[in-house]
């Protein structure tokens, strides 16, 4: 596979090195000539000194035959432009953009760049999933609303264990959408029981989260 890595910072450097180790053909485009020389001394002649935002540089780099362009500079706007130029002008097969502002994922998607990677988002989701909340894990906040999708694992001692959906008293607003039982998704009816070990996926609001957790997981 031919991969163009735009931006020779730490992300670009290690990405290129890993790809070379996996026997891919790689070219790093780095704007700063001194940094480009440093990378070349380390990784060999797989570096081109130039501004990847410029169409001529991307043409010279062979964007037309690139299987993948990874725009991993430190600036979201540069990564957007690199990806758009590659796709619109050179029809590169696939373009991935690194983003800092997690909100740009949605914006990039609407501007035609589907693949974005946000370190901010990854760390944030790890933090959110690591914080012990008595096994209530926020999965997703619906755009521009207060609505959250949460996941809860029903443990022994939970007061709803063994109850049927119709008998479970949940603080409003909250709705149980799916129950994952032994790897199978169940769309619960009124008479579906909740069992120990079930993973319950529910909609609620962030305001209601604490009350919902208590109702579902409290003993």
């Amino acid at each position, binding site marked *: 596979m031919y991969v163009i890595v735009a931006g020779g910072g730490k992300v670009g450097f290690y990405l290129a090195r890993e790809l070379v180790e996996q026997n891919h053909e790689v070219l790093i485009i780095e704007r700063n000539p001194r940094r480009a020389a440093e990378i070349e001394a380390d990784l060999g002649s797989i570096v081109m000194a130039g501004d990847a*935002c*410029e*169409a*001529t540089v991307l043409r010279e780099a062979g964007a037309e035959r690139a299987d993948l362009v990874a725009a991993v500079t430190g*600036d*979201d*706007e*540069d990564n*957007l*432009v690199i990806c*758009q*130029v590659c796709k*619109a*002008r050179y029809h590169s097969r696939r373009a991935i953009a690194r983003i800092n*502002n997690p*909100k*740009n994922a949605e*914006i990039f998607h*609407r*501007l035609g760049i589907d693949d974005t990677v946000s370190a901010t988002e990854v760390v944030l989701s790890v933090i959110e999933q690591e914080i012990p909340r008595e096994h209530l894990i926020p999965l997703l906040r619906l755009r521009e609303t207060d609505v959250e999708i949460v996941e809860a694992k029903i443990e022994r001692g939970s007061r709803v264990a063994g109850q049927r959906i119709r008998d479970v008293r949940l603080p409003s607003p909250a709705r149980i959408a799916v129950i994952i039982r032994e790897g199978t998704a169940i769309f619960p009816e009124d008479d579906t029981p909740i069992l120990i070990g079930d993973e319950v996926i529910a909609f609620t609001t962030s305001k209601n989260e604490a009350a919902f957790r208590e109702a579902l997981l409290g003993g």
Partner: protein
Amino acid sequence: MFTVIMGSGRVGARVANELSRAGHEVTILDINGDAFRRLDVDFAGNTLIGNGIDSDVLRRAGIERADAFIAATQGDNRNIMASQVALHIFNVPTVVARIYDPLRQETFELLGIQTISPTVMGANAFLAVLLEGEEPNQAGGGTSGAAPST
């Protein structure tokens, strides 16, 4: 007409001053508060410190009800990104971006952005003086895109 201007450099501030003087509503934003010194003392619009490629900042500037958006920072890519956000996310009717690099201008014309390239305009103006009387250059102008919807 309500216009949001990103970038309070010489051009951005001048456009803001003129619009304000003509009685239009203007909000101008810049990442550097010092840049607002270029605004006239009687500038009647709003100023906002912030980065225009951040959609939250644009929202704070009132982009959702703007009739026009002008991207006039020093960075081509910042202008390209912010103007696409204004056009496609916030549906601003008239959006114009300054793009210095003629090749990038060409590319983003393809993607539907209305652009102004001072590079092309400036070079053409010089050439017009130097080559006065010779065959006019047909290489194209410094502006592009659809006519503004008025």
